[in-house]
């Protein structure tokens, strides 16, 4: 499926480029009523800008629907740039593909008084292929241009008009796309009077005004005077927190297909129609399935065997063409070629399972860590990925079909704890993927370190990873060469100086539920000697490093990608003739969202034990808890840096 990092209304769609540079229609230059079209700088706009380098003067989208498959979209974007750091606002990118025809594209620079000093020329516009890094082929392209000036402040203005032929998405619109303050933002949806317009919002209570016009019904959302926003450390991205207006049709048409997205059931039914009949396997593939599942006792065992078979005989290759962004290659193609993208591999896996008598359904999902959850009450396309949903009798299974190394039954951290649209022959229904807790994502380390009188040390450390912690390791290391693994490990070890004596990566390839990584290290001068004393840091490998600043007015939550726990238990053998002069006092912090413990205990026989336990149990920490979070970070960082001091025994 087509990943949509850009607002959907920029991505979708249309036909031959007849004349891209047709004279701008009067309409694309339109500004909503009450706005000065010269965009001269005013005391109000300067006040709103404050210390920012940019103030957005107008963010205007006018989306005029002709029928279920056609629309015209006018975008008018104006920003005043106050210094060189705001120059990037002069760049504009218009993505397009076969469903979008760029009808006009204009730009100009105005001086502070609103006078046009320069216009965008045809030779300033570039038109290039835009295939995502992960794809073999896509039909996406972009046009881009950049306008800059050297007398500040100046105002840069772009307007363009798109014709869209094929409509799967209507605008998902953020009035404030980034941190810059916004003077005016307007979204207009214009639709024939008899057409149902659906909308919803996240992060705002704003309601549209409604009016009639010669083109039909006009719904208008207006925002003004939105102040500058600042990203806060450990906070969610600005994109996630920005107010968003979702709009969408009921009935839609795209490339000869039509559907209805007023309910999840009907939207799922459209997708079911797209994939219908694509699960036919050739006889030799069916025979192969029978061979693979022969003797399997349960459905679960069948699924596991076929998943292993899928992983060892296919790979992920993305090809996105037209509606191919949605319609998968058929199962036979994947069987013969041994590759496919997410939807093709899911469709193929479902076909293999069907041949083995197990029912499985594709499930559309919005993949990514910390993605805002699907707007449950507002059925529209909010997805960028497909996984496989298998409702077994006892349990529900989820399979990520694009990974050749994922342990069986894991859906993965970037798919967990969210709504997915399972596509059954009866239509679509939302199903929740499982959520993992801190104890599911563990990193457990045990080690023995022999410290010598000269400060050198030898460490024998074994770390066990499960859940998402295991994914991180496996993704970095599975099916890699020894050289790659060695380099990864060297960059991962946060130590002053070391020689890697040995490491055993064998469990990385095993596709088991956990990964175990034993390493043996020689640590040069791990203990620092001054005269009769040796100083060393008992926290060997796991350091909390970033302390967020104090912030009395914290407005955003702190977010983690997933809940996790990291436990280190280390034993130090101290050099003969030395005893502990000073050791850090135990640290123990408990909060509703996380806990941290670090403890050094001195045993007999010249042995010192160190225990560190960090557990983050909530992925979102509310802003009112920021102080407590900062306190935990400060104390943990201090404790992780604390030292043990050894001193030579009196002779």
């Amino acid at each position: 499926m087509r990943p949509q990092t850009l607002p959907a209304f920029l991505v979708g769609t249309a036909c031959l480029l007849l004349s891209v540079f047709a004279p701008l229609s009067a309409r694309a230059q339109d500004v909503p009523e009450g706005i000065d079209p010269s965009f001269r700088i005013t005391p109000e706009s300067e006040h709103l800008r404050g210390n920012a380098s940019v103030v957005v003067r107008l963010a205007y989208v006018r989306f005029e629907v002709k029928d279920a498959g056609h629309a015209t979209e006018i975008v008018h974007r104006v920003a005043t740039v106050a210094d060189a750091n705001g120059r990037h606002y002069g760049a504009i990118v218009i993505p397009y593909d076969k469903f979008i025809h760029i009808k006009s594209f204009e730009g100009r620079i105005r001086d502070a008084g609103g006078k046009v000093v320069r216009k965008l020329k045809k030779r300033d516009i570039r038109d290039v292929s835009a295939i995502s890094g992960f794809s073999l082929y896509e039909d996406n392209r972009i046009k881009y241009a950049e306008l800059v000036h050297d007398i500040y402040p100046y105002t840069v203005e772009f307007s363009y008009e798109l014709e869209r032929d094929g409509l799967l998405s209507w605008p998902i619109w953020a009035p404030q796309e980034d941190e810059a303050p916004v003077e005016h933002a307007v979204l207009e949806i214009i639709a024939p009077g008899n057409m149902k317009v659906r909308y919803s919002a996240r992060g705002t209570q704003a309601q549209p005004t409604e009016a009639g016009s010669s083109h039909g019904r006009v719904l208008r959302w207006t925002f003004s005077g939105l102040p500058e926003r600042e990203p806060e450390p450990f906070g969610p991205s600005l994109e996630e927190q920005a107010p968003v207006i979702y709009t969408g049709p009921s009935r839609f048409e795209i490339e000869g297909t039509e559907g209805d997205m007023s309910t999840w059931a009907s939207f799922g039914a459209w997708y079911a129609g797209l994939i219908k009949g694509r699960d036919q396997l050739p006889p030799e593939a069916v025979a192969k399935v029978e061979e693979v599942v022969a003797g399997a006792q349960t459905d679960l065992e069948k699924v596991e065997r076929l998943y292993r078979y899928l992983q060892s005989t296919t790979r992920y290759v993305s090809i996105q063409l037209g509606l191919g962004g949605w319609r998968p290659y058929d199962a036979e193609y994947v069987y013969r070629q041994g590759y496919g993208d997410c939807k093709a591999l899911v469709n193929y896996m479902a076909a293999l399972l069907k041949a083995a008598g197990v029912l499985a359904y594709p499930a559309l999902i919005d993949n990514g860590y910390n993605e805002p959850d699907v707007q449950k009450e507002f059925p529209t396309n909010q997805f960028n990925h497909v996984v496989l949903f298998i409702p077994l009798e006892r349990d529900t299974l989820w399979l990520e079909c694009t990974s050749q190394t994922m342990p069986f039954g894991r859906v993965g951290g970037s798919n967990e704890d969210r709504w997915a649209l399972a596509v059954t022959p009866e239509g679509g229904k939302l199903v929740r993927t499982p959520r993992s807790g801190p104890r599911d994502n563990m990193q457990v380390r045990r080690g023995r370190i022999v410290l010598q009188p000269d400060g050198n040390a030898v460490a024998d450390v074994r770390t066990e990873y499960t859940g998402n912690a295991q994914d991180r390791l496996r993704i970095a290391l599975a099916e890699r060469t020894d050289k790659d693994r060695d380099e990864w490990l060297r960059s991962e070890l946060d130590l002053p100086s070391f020689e890697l004596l040995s490491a055993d990566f064998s469990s990385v390839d095993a596709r088991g539920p956990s990964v175990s990584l034993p390493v043996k290290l020689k640590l040069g001068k791990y203990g620092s000697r001054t005269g009769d004393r040796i100083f060393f840091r008992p926290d060997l490998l796991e350091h909390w490093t970033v302390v967020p600043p104090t912030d009395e007015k914290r407005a955003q939550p702190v977010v983690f990608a997933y809940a996790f726990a990291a436990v280190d238990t280390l034993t130090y053998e101290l050099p003969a003739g030395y005893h502990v002069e000073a050791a850090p006092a135990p640290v123990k912090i408990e909060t509703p969202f996380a806990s941290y413990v670090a403890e050094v205990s001195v045993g007999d026989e010249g042995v010192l034990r160190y225990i560190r336990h960090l557990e983050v149990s909530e992925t979102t920490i509310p802003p009112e808890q920021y102080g407590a979070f900062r306190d935990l970070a400060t104390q943990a960082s201090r404790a992780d840096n604390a030292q043990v001091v050894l001193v030579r025994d009196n002779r």
Partner: protein
Amino acid sequence: MKYCTPLIACAILLFPAHLLQAQPDPIRWGKVTEAELNMDSFPADTNAAAVIRADYGTVAFEHDWSYRFIRHRRIKILSQAGYDWGTFSIAYYAVDDFQRVSHIRGQTITRGENGKPEFHKLERSSIFDEDIDGEYKRVRFTLPALEPGAIVEYMYTVTTESPAFLPRWEFQASEPTLWSEFRPEIPGTLAYVRATRGTLPFDISEKTPLTRPYGPSTQYRFVMKDVPALRDEPYMTTPEDYRAQIEFQLGAYHDGQQARKFLPTWDELAERLMQDDLFGGRLGRGKAVHQHVQTLTAGLDDPREKLAAIYDFVRTSIHCTGEPGVYLDHELSDVLRSKSGSEPEVNLLLVSMLREAGLNANPVLISTRSHGSVIDVYPILSQFNAVIGAVRIGGETIFLDATDPLRPYTLLPTDDLNGKGWVVREEGAAWSPISAAGRLRRQSLLLVRLDSLGRLSGNVQTSDFEYAALDRRSALNEKGDEEKFVQDVILNGLADIQLDSLHIEGADDIYAPLKSTVTFSESPYALAAGDLIYLNPVALDRMAENPLRLPERTFPVDFAYPRDLTYSARFELPAGYSVVESPHGARISMSSGGAMYERSVDVQGHAINVSTRFVIGKAVFTAGQYPELRKFFDAVVAAEAQQVVLKRGSGEQATSTVQ
């Protein structure tokens, strides 16, 4: 991109070239041996994820001096990590059909259940042709049915309309290559110069005279066997400098009447470039340039003042889009109008304006560090990927690159520092060495009072010069906030600072050092335990980890420019405490020179004075010096970890003990 096509009209039919070849082809389509099929590891290089069994390229000319390049490649895939070798792309210049890609074949050969080879063909529908930007296109395909142990092979033809140069042949890849052969057949009417890179010898290098309908020709044959993989290493300029490869550039041709030179001499090339409107043809001319220079240099007489005025105008007024290259896409008047230009446009505008101001300025062609070194024997323009400027004032040459608004004219960006550049003049173009005209230089001073809880109160003063100032100005600009900059950059290593005041000087004057003064109070730092306090006296820029993590390397380490960092600190001790133990002075250096660290520690009554100096005196260290360099860093890390021990009421004399 520019091509010169010598025109010649003759109409002799081409005789199928392969019938005349002196040697059989090293591989044949689909013919795999049982051993090849069964091979599942490569003991000679256990890191190999794939092995290139054979890479075979031929070039055959037509009567009109267009030529066909045919490539046949066969790769054994050993593990999933080698699947990338199953996907391939061919970029080509498509304007006016200058190049065409045809006859694409591909197949995957796997071992069937009975041990016999099974063939999986690349389907036409799986071959894609991408229009990159209206000039270049790219054919992309991926082969079916990959599995560990599979063999993939593909073959394609690229037809090129001009003989100006042949495809560059690389004998070495990031995986081992068992057989790499390039076999160009050159008509007697064409004479090429060739350039080879890398240190590996040819196993076969021979030529065979042949007779073609179009006349005599020579078939060359260059073979390398068992070529090791070339893999990237950190702190290396670019692997391209070391890759075994061969390039052909047309030197001369015979047009039927007489021999004509095609490849110019360096002087001729310079002359040609300086007449070319897309390079030097319009330097120092044009109304817009004239008017701007008039305004900028009005009342200025000193050439350095003129240089500064013009450089600063270009640096701040002309936005650099970051597009690389050596030619102009727009006229300089257009660049001035749009206030925006590619890298060559920005620098050629600079040269043009300096010339207009009466300065002795010239463009300089360079190959950047990431692009590789230049072979100066052959005037082959494609070796260069960037253009900067040079100005001569009072016997001194200053190299100029105005693409970064934060960089003073006295410094070049790291990527430009690749040894040398070719100064292009109408007459007397010449190579000139280019090395960093500056260092990364910093002075830090810490004056603090330590209290009995281990907290520090006092101030920090830092002065950054040259590359250090450039780095920190960029950081300040990126942070966009002085306090964040001070906390994260200036005070790195001091985690918990309670700031009282901060002052930054020279943030906007990029020719001045960047200075900062920070005062703070009661900020936790040293470890206080009972009657003891343990204090690390290196509180700023401490080298906590050795940056050289690999035990050995095969290529030089390149720091780009020298470094010189000094640190001085004075700690006033809390009342009633005295020094029990303290590290003493130290000096660490490399026997082969190039790096030095020294430290002095001085205990004076109730204060400790510490100073350190860290110097990397040169930019490049050979692979042979690497182990010693790594040890040097280890020793510095160990020295900077050492601590001072203070004790309350001990009355002991300060002792400075031997380690």
